[in-house]
């Protein structure tokens, strides 16, 4: 896939993102009491409106990429600390996004990344704190445990779908709740309690199981991001350069034709969900081994859910997912700074995410009102209805 085609693919998302920011700005401005108080006098209204929204997005930027305040006194580079945070959060998001994307390739809508992430985090952290192993080996085993657990968790969905036709959307949603409660219960068991403590907080990951940090202890950026990008590359290989990928695409595009051609739809369904689960699980592992260092009740944050919007924004392709995950990670990280500095609730990030995806999914909307021709359609990804 050459640069040009990527560029063309990027037009629609960019416009969509700009629009989303615009609408988000309206929401921010029109819910601000200071702004509303000026509603009577247009000029000052516009002024304060602009400044409010401007400051909000400035804070967002400072929290996500570069903050001059951090740079002053230190080297210029230290101002990029926020960016490092963005990258750290992008890694697991990327993997979850790929998990959702690969399911899409097989015509499955995997809403279960959240639960699969949790299972992965559980596996990785248990191995991470419970065993004493030499470095590297420890990491590998921890990651392995994570992938196995989460792959089974995801594969179960595929199995249900293949055997009973239970729709993956419902099942994965329910499994997310179940996983969350399972984690909560687990954190209360002696195996996961810190000796002499009762809080739902597992012992910290042993040094030997922590992922290598790239820029010293002050920056939590770790090899996780490289792993994620590499996996994105493997994703591309699997889909475009392997017979398994061929089968997957076939089942996703037209399962009955695939069946007639001797491709086992059931096998692909189960297999794809196994892989999807494993990917989310790997994300969980990278998060606890590379950044969180301990298993908590909300270890999964909202990675699993953001992943869906990431996959949609990334148009289900590895490159798209990589870029989209960086973008949304930035929004998340910047969002909390925004809330802190200008008291704009971080939830606006959800609104922006949703809007981006909406605008992308309906290219008709943009082409129609912005008179932009020959856009790549946003509908590479379609899920199957209840009967599909």
């Amino acid at each position, binding site marked *: 896939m050459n640069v040009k085609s990527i560029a063309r693919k990027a037009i629609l998302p960019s416009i969509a993102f700009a629009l989303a920011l615009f609408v988000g700005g309206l929401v921010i401005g029109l819910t601000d009491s200071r702004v509303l108080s000026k509603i009577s006098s247009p000029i000052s209204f516009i002024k304060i409106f602009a400044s409010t929204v401007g400051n909000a997005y400035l804070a967002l930027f400072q929290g996500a990429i570069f903050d001059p*305040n*951090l740079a002053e006194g230190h080297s210029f580079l230290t101002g990029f*600390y926020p960016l490092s*945070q963005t990258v750290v*959060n992008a890694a697991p998001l990327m993997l979850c996004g790929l998990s959702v994307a690969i399911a899409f390739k097989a015509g499955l809508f995997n809403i279960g990344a959240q639960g699969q992430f949790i299972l992965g985090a559980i596996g990785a952290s248990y191995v991470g704190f419970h065993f004493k192993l030499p470095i590297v080996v420890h990491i590998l085993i921890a990651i392995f445990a994570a992938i196995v657990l989460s792959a089974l968790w995801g594969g179960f969905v595929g199995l249900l779908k293949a055997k009973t036709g239970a729709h993956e959307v419902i099942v994965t949603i329910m499994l997310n709740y179940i996983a969350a*409660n399972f984690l*909560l219960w687990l954190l*209360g068991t002696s195996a996961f309690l*810190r*000796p*002499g*403590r*009762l*809080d*739902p*907080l597992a*012992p*910290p990951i*042993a040094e030997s199981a922590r992922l290598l940090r790239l820029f010293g*202890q*002050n920056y*939590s950026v770790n090899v996780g991001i490289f792993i994620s990008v590499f996996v994105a590359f493997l994703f591309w290989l699997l889909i475009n350069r392997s017979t398994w990928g061929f089968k997957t695409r076939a089942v996703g595009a037209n399962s009955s034709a695939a069946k007639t051609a001797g491709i086992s739809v059931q096998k692909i369904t189960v297999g794809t969900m196994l892989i999807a689960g494993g990917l989310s699980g790997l994300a969980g592992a990278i*998060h606890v081994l590379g*950044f*969180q*260092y*301990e298993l*908590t*009740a*909300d*270890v*999964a*944050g*909202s990675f699993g859910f953001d992943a869906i919007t990431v996959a949609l924004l990334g148009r289900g392709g590895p490159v798209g997912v990589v870029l989209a995950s960086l973008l949304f990670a930035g929004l*998340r*990280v910047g*969002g*909390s*700074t925004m*809330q*802190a500095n200008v008291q704009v609730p*971080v939830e606006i990030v959800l609104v922006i995410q949703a809007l981006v995806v909406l605008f992308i999914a309906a290219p008709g909307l943009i082409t129609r009102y912005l008179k932009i021709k020959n856009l790549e359609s946003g509908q590479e990804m379609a899920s199957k209805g209840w009967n599909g």
Partner: protein
Amino acid sequence: ATAAVKTKACLALDTGGVDDKSFNASSWAGAVKVKSSSISVEYLPAASSADFAGNIKKFVDNKCTIIIGVGFAISGAIIASAKANPTISYAVVDDGAYDCNADYSVCNPVANVKGLTFATQEAAFLAGYVAAGYSKTGIVATYGGAPYPTVTCFMSGYKQGVDYYNTVKKKSVKVLGWDGKNGEFIGDFQNTTKALATSKAFEQAGADVIMPVAGGLAAQTAQNSMTSKKSVTIWVDTDGYVSANQFKSVLLTSVMKGLGEAVGSVITDVSKGKFTNKSYVGTLANKGTKIATYHDLAKKVPSKIQNEVRAIAADIVAGKIKVSA
């Protein structure tokens, strides 16, 4: 006299946000109380535990003089940061903030971290006793949002209070929702419908006193008490008579947790240069935890009981009665 040292107090909140009607809210309130010309306060919310380290780092970079982590979950991140920045003072709410070795055989306080914990079970014990004494049906109840120790210690103290009442009065008042290790939990702190259904279920099981330990969800129980008139509610964390005045007619009492005060005093200590890492435990003795007066329902609580409660409080302070978490 030299100008007071400018103190910059920074709160790293737990998930749930500054408006969680619970520990985040009261910690922030406590900080705001002591805000002054020489003391500035600010906070950072966390969308998930992934934000903790970053938030603390921001504070360090912003030259905060005291960084307060709210909630046991943030403790690890606080300690890590504290060891890296020995010149800054730290505090953690709801955690002893001990630094342990790999296998937790040795745990030591950190030189610049103060742990703020609360023996709320002591006050809850009193509440349990009052509830038992108040109950006409001989059944009282409690439930939690999620089975965190900071939640269950309320429920546990409450149950012990009832049991104590039973032993001294040779009665058999039953506690629903907590059997000493297991109990009724909503599963989260959002599901108002479930909270309401649970409160109703308690009433139908005969309970006429309910103590919800579930942050904002407590309002559902009080709400239900108001409409059904079949039960009264025991508020927690703050004095509900003040913080949730619309329910005053059904609030038997409140199990208060002096979060705000504790946070406030740490900040003032720092501004006065009197900060120590000696961990603080809120007890009945130091009024770090207590039960509110009975306000409007005072006449419904037999004065006999009221006196006994005072006596028991004294015994707990004196250590004659042991209350476990």
